[in-house]
């Protein structure tokens, strides 16, 4: 699985570097280093209220430190385990 976190200006200002940090921690915590590749990407074309990420081909917008755990569980953990 490939996870891209948008580091374009808009997402950067909304905290994409924090999301990258959380991703790294969470991937390590769940021992997913072999299954998940984390990458940065410039604009995903969905500048919204939160940070945009792309999990494989699916774009998820509005990611924040508040909803991160929920998003990680739904789009990463459940998918990897499926």
């Amino acid at each position: 699985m490939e996870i891209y976190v948008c580091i374009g200006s808009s997402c950067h200002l909304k905290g994409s570097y924090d999301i990258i940090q959380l991703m790294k921690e969470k991937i390590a915590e769940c021992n997913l280093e072999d299954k998940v590749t984390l990458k940065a990407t410039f604009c995903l074309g969905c500048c919204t209220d939160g940070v945009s990420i792309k999990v494989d081909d699916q774009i998820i917008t509005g990611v924040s430190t508040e909803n991160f755990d929920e998003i990680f569980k739904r789009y990463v953990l459940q998918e990897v385990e499926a």
Partner: protein
Amino acid sequence: MMQDHLFDTKVQLLKYKVLRSVAKHAFEGTLDSCYYDIPLEIVPGKEATMRCCIYKERAIVGERIKLAMGGHPENPNIIEVLDIACDECPVSSYMVSDACRGCIAHRCESVCPRGAITFDNHKAHIDDSKCIECGRCASVCPYSAISAHKRPCQIACKIKAIDMDENRKAVINNDKCISCGACAYQCPFGAITDKSFILDAIKLIQGSDGNKKYHVYAAVAPSISSQFSYATLGQVITGLKELGFHDVVEVALGADMVAYKEAEELKEKGFLTSSCCPAFVDYIDKYFPQLRQHVSHNLSPMGEIAKLIKNTDPDSKVVFIGPCTAKKMEIQKDALKPLVDCVLTFEELQALFGAKDLDLTTLEESELDNASYYGRIFARSGGLADAVAQALKEHNVSPEEFALKAISCDGIEACKVALLKASKNALPENFIEGMACIGGCIGGAGCLTHAAKDKTLVDKYGKEAKEKTITDAISVYHI
């Protein structure tokens, strides 16, 4: 739009009109059919306003169009002389004016080391064939009647790369030229200009089919903070996206990376010169080859940011947009070829906005924030050295371990002095920040304006950055 106030000079305005027209036809796909109409569009007549007649004006516009379309491929230099536009300014450099009173003292005659001064009818006369342009006569004349009259291009070219041919036309010596563009900005007739690659940029944008086939990125130099002052930076970013760029990225983030790496390299080697300014690097190559080993091995900020973009998006295209003509030479280097696809100047970007009839002042604002304060201040003289000092701190290098003694060389003449000392092991500093243009990149030949307040604008832009340290900004390089 208030075209008259966009630029410092009317020469820039003329160049703009040609670039805009070429770009407009290219965007509309009518360049081939309208090629011969452009001179008439720009010089409608009937009265000549710049030259002896409208036909010469149109012929010169014709030459400008060639430069706007990429120039003469047989000339490797990106700075070219438009022969028919060169007004053959007087060559003799020291001249005696009517203020000469034909005094009795004749200090000028006595001080001249070559006996070049004689007196006709009680008035001093300088024999050009003997004069060595030392200027001593001018300095001793009590009436200030002797003054230097050099060609503006030759005054601008501090490295003496411009000569005159037998027809008194300016000729650039490509073996000496470092493509800084100073002559192009200073020639009052606009007879020297940089080759433009706007057509390549337009082709990249159009070929992307609305960024569906591949993404086209605009990598903008931090000196943009001092440009397009009639609009906000946020509006310029929206304008770039309207032109068809997928995203706009700060080259200043590449500068953060350069500062970080340069600090490590400097500590290891003990003495280093910067490698950000392509004209400075070219100057060392051509004039101080013995110092080449001391030039930082880092890519320039342009190279670093393009590398990051292409790492994250391998099929993408990168267009660098900045103040610099020498960058057009830099991207021809093997290390840069796969990274940067095209270089535009701010002048050329303005022409693209004009070609699309984009009035930036009516646009919404977009955000631009990738770099730290330190990456952003690279745009002005002294910024790079400040950033390297900061990077040493962030590497936890104590002053006992390595003490930075930087010299910030503002302009190529200052670079020359420092490099001369370094070549004789007589330079007290251990880091040379070399910037060929006065003021740093904000003084670049491809800028729309070169104003004194520009430095303040760069610092202000620096302080607005979200990331406060270099390490934080470049964390995206280490995912």
